[in-house]
């Protein structure tokens, strides 16, 4: 049989698209087993302290209420590695919004009403949620997220900076940001003869299964976690979140299936968020624009429950040649909700600050900012000295500039006026590491009817994972893509890594490729009619994931933006955004484009609209719903263009793919902020660029 043409690189439509748009696809909270009860959590209303008394009498007296779980009577869990999962285990309140009780009732409305009847008395303690540049609790973090060293130095920063003919010294700030996936965190749990089954909205069901097994003292085979369809996560579903533990507990206590979908307004306090950052960037260069010295010092917070350090200074170690460098993170543990992963943790805020500072240097030196970046292109990764497996940042900058129409460009600011509007353009670079977050396993099976079945616990968080895995399998099998069935989204399948770190496709896809290749070999070795069950081969990539590469492996990109600033209202609106990326081989242009556009849109929100503070008095976030936390709407998006360079990198995986889930957000905010400067001549170093701040500076 002649091999079918490889569908890798073809713009196939999403396999489950029809189910999703017709509502047939069922999400975690859309499973309702017979007898299902509904849960509603009770959040703490103090910012720090202890629970002194809990009165559940009135709640329990409501008809239809089955149970009120509190720390006094909830099942005891084994100590979790992630202490945000130790829900209802003790009387401590580490931050406002921490769950102090869970009501379980016949119906959602009853559970909600009963939750209001749970009366909690507290002994409050003084709290502190205010991050300041000189906070006494700040210490230098040993590690940043991703196990990167907190501090890296090379050369002699102080001396080199003092000696540099041209310098920039600027501080950039960003507020906390929230992931807010469309689908809230939700779980439906049931126990059947000691076996726990959970439909969970998660980016990785294998990890949820393992954690639940550990928490409840079960074997991994006693737990099944299903995440068939997931309505986005952006990092906030990367590991188990409290709802899955609460649902499992509630099902255990009541003996019924229990459904728990977290209310939107509670998400900010319990599912993680991007920590705020204050970033001081210092650059020094020759008059000709050769960067000699670079420092990025990040100040951020973590919570008291567990450590998390937004690694915003990490990408600076990848970007530009400079003999002298210092990158470090200072962090203070405050009484705040737990920060965690949000799309491109580290890279998104870090590259915002770094790429604005590079723009400031370009302005200072009167050099085109595209040319300044190209001039400082390193031969090897500056921090490690390792060669790049592939790096096409220069091509992204050049080709992006061509497509955008970057030149001719008058570099002077505040010159392009259209009535009340000032118009400007900006550029920024982007990077995101290629990381195999972990190994995955897969099974490939050939059936007598000529079809194949691929099993791997991948997760589709809206990315099109099924589709791209089918393409990878079809290519390896030499079979038509529509002969491939894909089973993903269950912990009963061969284990897979989470959909995170932009590494899901590389990890699952490699395992699928390997299993499919092994199956082809087995079919060749065992010719003849297939047995009724077909023939299967399995493979995993644990060795590959554990291996260290001699190469520095990263995606790169260049963002170009045109903004208009209304000098009357202070409104900043985006006319055009263009992203040019080099991210290995693009396996499916349709779904890849969708993810890159999504990332850029999220970056637009980070730059212009998404704003949230901690209320110092009450200790909670000020914007908890989608009316007050302004994610971009369709009317904010005019032209977004996405292009990429076909990159051939043999040092990655058999598909030659990097990752595309996160790099889209990385350079967007800096490109917009730089365009804002070009439009107005004002450096506004505090995101988001909302009318209040813009007007203050325009009139000041």
């Amino acid at each position, binding site marked *: 049989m002649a091999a079918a043409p490889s569908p890798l690189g073809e713009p196939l439509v999403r396999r489950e698209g029809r189910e999703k748009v017709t509502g047939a696809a069922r999400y975690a909270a859309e499973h309702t087993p017979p007898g299902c009860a509904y849960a509603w959590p009770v959040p703490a*209303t103090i910012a720090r302290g202890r629970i002194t008394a809990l009165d559940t009498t009135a709640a329990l007296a409501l008809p*239809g209420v089955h149970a009120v779980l509190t720390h006094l009577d909830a099942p005891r869990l084994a100590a979790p590695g992630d202490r945000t999962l130790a829900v209802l285990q003790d009387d401590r309140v580490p931050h406002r919004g921490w769950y102090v009780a869970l009501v379980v009732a016949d*119906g959602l*409305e*009853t559970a*909600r*009403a009963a939750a*209001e009847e749970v009366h909690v008395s507290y002994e409050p303690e003084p709290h502190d949620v205010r991050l300041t540049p000189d906070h006494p609790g700040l210490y230098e973090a040993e590690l940043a997220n991703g196990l990167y060293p907190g501090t890296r130095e090379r050369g002699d920063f102080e001396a080199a900076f003092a000696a540099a003919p041209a310098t920039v010294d600027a501080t950039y700030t960003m507020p906390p940001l929230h992931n807010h996936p469309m689908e809230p965190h939700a779980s439906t749990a049931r126990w059947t003869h000691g076996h726990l089954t959970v439909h969970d909205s998660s980016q990785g069901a294998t990890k949820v299964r393992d954690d639940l097994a550990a928490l409840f003292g079960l074997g991994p085979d006693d737990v099944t976690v299903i995440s068939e369809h997931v309505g986005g996560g952006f990092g906030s579903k990367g590991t188990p979140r409290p709802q899955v533990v609460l649902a499992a507990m509630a099902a255990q206590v009541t003996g019924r299936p229990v459904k728990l979908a977290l209310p939107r307004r509670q998400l900010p306090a319990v599912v993680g968020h991007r920590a705020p950052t204050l970033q001081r960037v210092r650059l020094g260069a020759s008059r000709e624009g050769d960067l000699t010295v670079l420092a990025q010092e990040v100040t951020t917070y973590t919570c008291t429950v567990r450590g998390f350090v937004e690694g915003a200074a990490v990408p600076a170690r990848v970007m530009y040649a400079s003999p002298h460098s210092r990158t470090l993170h200072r962090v203070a543990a405050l009484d705040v909700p737990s920060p965690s992963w949000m799309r491109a943790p580290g890279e998104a805020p870090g590259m915002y600050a770094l790429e604005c500072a590079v723009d400031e240097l370009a302005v200072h030196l009167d050099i085109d900012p595209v040319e300044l970046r190209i001039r400082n292109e390193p031969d090897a990764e500056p921090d490690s000295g390792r060669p790049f497996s592939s790096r096409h940042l220069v091509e992204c900058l050049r080709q992006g500039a061509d497509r955008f129409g970057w030149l001719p460009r008058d570099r002077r600011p505040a010159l392009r006026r259209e009535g*009340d509007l000032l118009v400007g353009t900006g550029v920024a670079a982007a990077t995101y590491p290629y990381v195999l977050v972990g190994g995955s396993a897969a099974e490939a099976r050939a059936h007598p009817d000529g079809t194949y079945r691929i099993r791997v616990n991948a997760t589709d968080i809206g990315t099109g994972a099924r589709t791209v895995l089918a393409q990878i399998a079809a290519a390896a099998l030499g079979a038509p893509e529509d002969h491939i069935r894909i089973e993903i989204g269950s912990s009963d399948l061969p284990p897979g890594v989470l959909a995170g770190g932009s590494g899901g496709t590389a990890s699952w896809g490699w395992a699928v490729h390997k299993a499919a290749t092994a199956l082809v070999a087995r079919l060749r070795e065992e010719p003849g009619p297939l047995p009724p069950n077909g023939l299967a081969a399995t493979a995993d990539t644990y060795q590959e994931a554990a291996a260290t590469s001699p190469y520095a492996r990263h995606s790169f990109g260049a963002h170009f933006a045109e903004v208009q600033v*209304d*000098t*009357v*209202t*202070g*409104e900043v*609106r985006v006319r055009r955004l263009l992203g040019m990326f080099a991210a290995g081989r693009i396996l499916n242009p349709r779904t890849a484009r969708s993810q890159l556009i999504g990332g850029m849109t999220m970056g637009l929100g980070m730059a*212009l*609209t998404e*704003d949230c*503070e901690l*209320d*110092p*008095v*009450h200790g909670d976030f*000020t*914007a908890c719903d989608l*009316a*007050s936390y*302004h994610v*971009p*709407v*369709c*009317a*904010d998006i005019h032209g977004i263009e996405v292009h990429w360079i076909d990159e051939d990198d043999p040092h990655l995986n058999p598909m030659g793919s990097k990752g595309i889930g996160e790099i889209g957000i990385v350079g967007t905010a800096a490109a917009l902020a730089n365009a804002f400067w070009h439009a107005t001549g004002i450096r506004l170093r505090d995101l988001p660029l*909302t*009318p*209040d*701040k813009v*007007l*203050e500076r325009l*009139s000041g």
Partner: protein
Amino acid sequence: MKPFGYVRAGSVAHAVQVAAERPGARFLGGGTNLVDLMKLGVESPPLLIDVSRLPLDRIEELPDGGLRIGAMVRNSDLAAAPAVRDRYPVLSQAVLSGASGQLRNTATTGGNLLQRTRCLYFQDVTKPCNKRAPGTGCPAREGAHRDLAVLGHSEHCVATQPSDLAVALAALDATVHLHGPDGERGVPVTTFHRLPGDRPDRDTVIRTGELITAVELPPALPGLHMRYRKARDRSSFAFALVSVAAVLAVRDGAVRHAALAYGGLAHRPWRARAAEAVLHGASATEDTFARAADAELAAARPLRDNGFKVALARGLTVGVLADLAARA
């Protein structure tokens, strides 16, 4: 579950009678704000009186050339009505600048006027709020108040009225028609909403049992130019930081008629009488417009984080009036 009664009103008289008999009962129109507030625990009415099916869903021509808008006319229908678009474009623009398409399809004219502040503390029952729980205090004064009032606020409340529709109606000198246990009355939109004073729990002058049945617009005289402009954090689905509704007539270079109202500045749509006094008869120049804005905004008392609203209101005023004068 938290039980509440539901009754579908058969007539205006029926609705009013039931409301008068049941303290705390609420009329249900589109429910786009009330139902949210019930979910948040801010509102817990014992009874909902559904008035959405009352025959108040028509826009009628009045003998004097004005327009009568039934209280149940949906926002989308109001904005799209040819008579509104042609003669009162400021009203159509205001409605279309608010909420989302889905919400406008549901929200009613009467309900829009009665929507409540989006102050974060008002919407969070775990925190003090004089409007929601009189006497508990106002954390917004020291807390998150970037979006709140700069005019007419009190030590008890700094909330803003969120309606766009109401701002346009204020500039158009519309009248709210109420039907209550004591009969019918009309209240100018400009005095329909209250300033907070020491009773911030009362948004409007509406009395117990009174139902909004209609809003009446006076005739739109020839030669009037009008516009609504709204500044906001994103391009759609965001409340006004500041909005302005302006109606202007200019003859021979002088202002013959000017009506100006602001949204986002106060506890009610803020009719700018002091600005209008400067405008009347004055030459239609940017200088006049700026002086008018300054006259009105001299009374502003911004809080720590919302001083930008004064400059924003000033800029919007000058911009919108200059735009209208250029058309005249």
